[in-house]
């Protein structure tokens, strides 16, 4: 075992005998483009709604709940997909979220929410995890589309305008999710949740 490792290590350290420097650098460059592009394409494929609702757990619970809401169907026809709210858009955070999501693959393999009853039993836990995530990143995904700078407070209800224009300035630690829970999926039993 150790011998074999040593063999590979020395092989890696040895300068190339047969291939030219030009081939190795250019070839490495091209291979890099192909692999990187392939990686990103695969990553984007896992970001599509089609991929998300490919599993019946996602299709029959969260997706059905999303369907009636304003984020799915509305006057102007702009809509949010799963990944718009559940995956950060910029690269570093996206990769972080994707690594977290490997736990969801585990849940899928072992069927942790594969019946309506199991989903119902875990609803609060799952919701709490999302609330916590959005609270921690200052509702980053909401703000991908909803910007304070573009809000016309005069068109909002007085109470909403009041909250949006004063209480939520930069130095307050209030964020979108503190008030806007359960806007795209049904809420769990809120009896034990402090709102």
């Amino acid at each position, binding site marked *: 075992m150790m011998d074999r490792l040593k063999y590979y290590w020395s092989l890696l350290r040895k300068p190339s005998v047969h291939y030219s420097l030009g081939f190795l650098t250019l070839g490495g460059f091209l291979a890099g483009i192909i692999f990187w592009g392939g990686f990103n394409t695969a990553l984007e494929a896992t970001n599509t709604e089609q991929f998300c609702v490919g599993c019946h757990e996602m299709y029959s619970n969260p997706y059905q709940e999303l369907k009636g*809401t304003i984020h799915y169907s509305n006057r102007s026809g702009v809509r949010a997909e799963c990944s718009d709210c559940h995956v950060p858009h910029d690269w570093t955070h996206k990769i972080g979220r994707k690594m977290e999501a490997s736990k969801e693959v585990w849940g899928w393999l072992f069927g942790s929410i594969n019946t309506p009853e199991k989903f119902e039993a875990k*609803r609060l836990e799952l919701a709490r995890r999302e609330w916590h995530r959005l609270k921690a990143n200052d509702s980053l995904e909401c703000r991908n589309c909803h910007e304070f700078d573009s809000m016309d407070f005069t068109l909002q209800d007085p*109470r909403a305008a009041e909250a949006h224009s004063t209480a939520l300035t930069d130095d307050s630690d209030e964020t979108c999710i503190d008030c806007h829970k359960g806007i795209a999926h*049904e809420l769990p039993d*809120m009896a034990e949740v402090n*709102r």
Partner: protein
Amino acid sequence: MKKLIAILLMASLALVALAEPPSLSPSSPDGLREGGTLGETRNAPAIAGDPRDVKREVRNYPEQPPVIPHVIRDYQVDKRFNRCLDCHSREAAPSAGAPMVSVTHFMDRNFQVRAEVTPGRYFCTQCHVPQTDAEALVETDFKPIDQVIREGDRGENQ
């Protein structure tokens, strides 16, 4: 005689030809929407809009469940959560600037006052509906009681 038979035969044939075939799609009566016929598919009437800034409406009679002067799209009212009570509950009402649910809602069917809105009064939209710009479906000459009394005092419409 032959002529008569021929004429009668012609007449009966003409009657058969003129007789209207029994309709396969009889007309149906006009109900709340235009009837048309049974075989016809008509467009559903347009869904009434939810005007955004209606003010609170005056009730037509004291027991009328007040109509909802705001949009309630996607409001979740079920076993797990009641979105209406998020603002209209006793605790939340003042800070939300919303009217508190009436005290009658805390009374169960045995007239026992409870700590929370009782199950019988929990599903808000059973009685309360949003105010829309919908036209009245049928004509009505309903008058609120105070108007009836006032007119009675003035001796009108006796």
